[in-house]
Structures are given as structure tokens and as C-alpha cells.
């Protein structure tokens, strides 16, 4: 008996038998690595544990067995990692999208208190997921970056595509990236019309090299918030009345959406055993009818590695930190040059020589995260 059928029992159940599963896996391997099929099995198992095998089959059988197999495929140029040669490979975008969606929902299933897979109607999101007593409706979207179309989904492709398209920096439609993203998200609010009382989340698969500061930030909050490079800890969430009219969150219908995330999954570490690492950034909607509760943000962090922008209270901006140095540490340069200084917002200073020791004292005295460490004289504690 081939290994595939024994390893992928849930996939076999969904597809209607071991033989079908073997055929399907052989077919899918034209487009994805074996590990993607293994991960698919794990995700289906997690979903089955939460919503029942029958429900998983009901929702995904047709999509896996028919829709992706009948989807159009295209040839694309990619880099064969074993030979370092450019090769032409077949790509099935619909399969990549579906695998990502199932993996993402499978991950949520592992952390959810309860979960329901919805029936994939146009008017509904993908799933209802309960975190910390909060009902969350989740819609998973796939973003095809026009610039990096070859790059998008590379982790799922059989070959790694060349991440450096020669000289290509402008989207093919000549649209700025955030405008393109905004267009892609148009209409997503329809999915949440029947759930205005829920935490409504849009998770966008994001395998792009485009900066969040160029894309999600201006698309959601308005172009005037565009900032590159984007430092999530430096970004102060706009107040509802500060939102730019061109940003999606300023719109009335978008009040239904609690937040939008850019999300990716990478296979790491470099050596075996490898696992899927999730990460991304969740952008809360300041005008949302139902804001994202802190407990939900924490669960999303755990499940998908999402950092919710605005969850860390910024004690001081970079400019304020520099001003603190000038006012309270610079006068100490003559006496304490080369030593370390921990400074809080009130200008209280602790001086020491050992980073760990000084930090522990500063945490006790000023509170966790409520101070900044400088090296007296050079300002920077070290180089990264």
C-alpha cells in the first residue's frame, strides 16, 4: 500500500477513499511539495476534531476533488532549488489558495474553543470561530501581488520562484500597491452583513515583498498614513476622526470589519525537522462596530503569529526617546561615558554596566517596558 493513503486518512475520507486520495496527491504534487500535502492533512484533522469529519467533507470535498482539479493552470518561470536553473513550471493558483485557506482555518481550529465551517456561500465568510468567549467571523483572502506574482505562494509551489524579477518594481497595471490591495478587498463587507455583532476578521494571505507601510496601512487607514519603513511598534493607531477618506476603514460599510491581517506561513527552520511558522500583522479598524478584544488578539497571536498593531502601548516615540537622551543622559556623559543608562518617561535614570542586571532593576523600579536603555556617549547600546 502506498504511504500516502496511510498518512492522509482525513484527506482520504474527504476525497472519498484511499485510492482517490492517492490519485489526488499524485496530481497535486505537480504543483506543491509533499510537505504541503502533509500540512493539509494535519489541518483537515484539526478541523475534523473541532467541527466533525462529515462537515469537513461536506465543505471541502467538491472544492478539493473537482474545483481545483478543473481550475486553469499556467506556466510560470521558477528557480529549481536543486539545480539553480530557471525552469518552466505549472501553477494552479486555485489549489494554492485552497490549501492556504484550509491550513489557516486548521490552525485556528487548534486554538478555538469552538468552530463552525460555513457553507462557502458568497454572502458568508469561511468560518465562525470562538476565542475567549468571543464569536469571530473569519474570511480568508488571497492577495495576488501584481509585481511579485511569481513570488506569491512560493512556499507552496513545487519550485521556489525567483524572488528578484529583473527591474520590476511597479505593478503590472501601473497601480500603486495599496490601491491594488484596496481594490482586492472591495466587497468583502458583504460577507459580514449578517454578523454585525461579531468580531469580523479578514485574513489576507500575504506572500509579498511589499512593505506593509506601502500596502495595508494606506489601503486601510488612508494614504497620508503611508510610512516606509513601517515599524509596528512606532505606529500609533489613528483615531476614527483621523482616518483618511481614501482608506477602507473610513467607510461606513467597513465598520462591520473589526480588523484586517496580512498573514504568511513559512516552512522553517532551514533544516529538518521543519514546521510551518505563521506570522503577520493585524490592523484593527478604529471605527469598527465591534473592536478586536485583547483576548482575541492574544489568541490570534498564539495561533497565527499575528501582531495586532496598537496592542503595545507606546511609552514614547523614537523622537521622544532621543529627546530623553539629550535632556537626561547627555549631561551624564562626562562622568559615566560608556556605561548603560535606563531612562523612564519622567526622566529618572538608572546607571549600570550589565544589560541584563540593569534591565531587571529598571523593570522593578519603572515597570515592564516603561523605560529605554542607552549607552552613555554612543547612545546605541549595540549594533544589530
Amino acid at each position, binding site marked *: 500500500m502506498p504511504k500516502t493513503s496511510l498518512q492522509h486518512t482525513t484527506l482520504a475520507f474527504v476525497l472519498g477513499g484511499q485510492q482517490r486520495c492517492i490519485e489526488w496527491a499524485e496530481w497535486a504534487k505537480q504543483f506543491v511539495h509533499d510537505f504541503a500535502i502533509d500540512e493539509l492533512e494535519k489541518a483537515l484533522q484539526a478541523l475534523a476534531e473541532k467541527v466533525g469529519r462529515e462537515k469537513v467533507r461536506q465543505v471541502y470535498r467538491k472544492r478539493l476533488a473537482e474545483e481545483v482539479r478543473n481550475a486553469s493552470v499556467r506556466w510560470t518561470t521558477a528557480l529549481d532549488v536543486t539545480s539553480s536553473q530557471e525552469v518552466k513550471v505549472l501553477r494552479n493558483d486555485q489549489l494554492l489558495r485552497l490549501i492556504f485557506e484550509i491550513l489557516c482555518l486548521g490552525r485556528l481550529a487548534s486554538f478555538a474553543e469552538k468552530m463552525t465551517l460555513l457553507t462557502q456561500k458568497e454572502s458568508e465568510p469561511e468560518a465562525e470561530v470562538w476565542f475567549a468567549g468571543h464569536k469571530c467571523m473569519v474570511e480568508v483572502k488571497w492577495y495576488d501581488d501584481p509585481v511579485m506574482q511569481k513570488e506569491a505562494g512560493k512556499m507552496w509551489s513545487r519550485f521556489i520562484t525567483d524572488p528578484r524579477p529583473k527591474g520590476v518594481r511597479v505593478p503590472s497595471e501601473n497601480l500603486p500597491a495599496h490601491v491594488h490591495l484596496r481594490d482586492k478587498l472591495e466587497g468583502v463587507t458583504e460577507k459580514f452583513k449578517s454578523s454585525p455583532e461579531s468580531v469580523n476578521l479578514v485574513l489576507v494571505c500575504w506572500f509579498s515583498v511589499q512593505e506593509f507601510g506601502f500596502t495595508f496601512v494606506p489601503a486601510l487607514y488612508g494614504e497620508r498614513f503611508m510610512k516606509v519603513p513601517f515599524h509596528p511598534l512606532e505606529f500609533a493607531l489613528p483615531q476614527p476622526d483621523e482616518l483618511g477618506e481614501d482608506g477602507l476603514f473610513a467607510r461606513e460599510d467597513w465598520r462591520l470589519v473589526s480588523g484586517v491581517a496580512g498573514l504568511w506561513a513559512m516552512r522553517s527552520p532551514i533544516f529538518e525537522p521543519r514546521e510551518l511558522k505563521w506570522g503577520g500583522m493585524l490592523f484593527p479598524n478604529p471605527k469598527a462596530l465591534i473592536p478586536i478584544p485583547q483576548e482575541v488578539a492574544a489568541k490570534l497571536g498564539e495561533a497565527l503569529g499575528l*501582531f495586532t498593531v496598537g496592542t503595545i502601548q507606546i511609552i514614547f516615540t523614537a523622537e521622544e*526617546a532621543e529627546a530623553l537622551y539629550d535632556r537626561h543622559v547627555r549631561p551624564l556623559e562626562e562622568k559615566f561615558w560608556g556605561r548603560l543608562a535606563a531612562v523612564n518617561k519622567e526622566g529618572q535614570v538608572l546607571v549600570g554596566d550589565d544589560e541584563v542586571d540593569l534591565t531587571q532593576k*529598571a*523593570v522593578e523600579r519603572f515597570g*515592564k517596558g516603561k523605560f529605554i536603555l542607552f549607552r552613555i556617549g554612543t547612545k546605541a*547600546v549595540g549594533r*544589530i
Partner: protein
Amino acid sequence: MQASGKVFLVKVEWQVGRYKEQLWAELDTGFSGELVLPATRLGELISRLGNPDGFSWVELADSSQMKAPYYIGSVSPIGSGRHIPCHIYLVGHKAIVGLKILESLNIVPDILQALRSKGITAEWTVDP
């Protein structure tokens, strides 16, 4: 000249509180500290460990300076039997271990000796 793209990777175990994890990190002698984790893990780590313990003012490779969040923890190169108390920073896109690991394991004199044994003049000093 085309870069080879080859890097040294070191397997380390890091720990903050009771949470510990093993990973491969790139050895970067341009990094003066012990361990950096990718900032992309911030969301996950905040949910596991709470807010970062503090912020340090650091210099990046392009000479710009910024404040970087960190946790207080320890790092142990697998096989060394040593646990080095340190700041674990969250910056950039990849895991890196820095010079302090080499220093604390007393490897720097070995590197110097290896260089000198090949007739190369080398010194270990502060960046002027």
C-alpha cells in the same frame, strides 16, 4: 562579484521565563549582542510572554538608530552546555546570534589563533 549566499548557522536554545525553544540562527559578527529573533514573531511572543521587558536604543547595519524591543532571557548554543543570560531582541526578518556568543564561549582567541597561524595579522578590538 556574486555573493555566495552562504552563512554560518548555529543551533541554539533560548528561554524566557518557562518558555524555551530551539532554532537555527545565523552567526553575524556585525551583531554585538547574543540573540535576535525576527520581529515577525512579535505577535506570537506577546501572547506567550506578555509585553517586551524593555526597549534598547540600537544601531542597525545602515547606521540608522532605533529602539528595539527585547525580553530578558538566556541563550544556549546546543552542545555548549552553557546558558548565557541575555537580552533577546525582536528586530528584522531573521534569527541571528552575535559576537557575545563567541565571546562568552571563549571562541574569539581560537579564531585569532587560527588567523595568526596562517600568517594573517589580526586583532580583536573596539570598532574605531
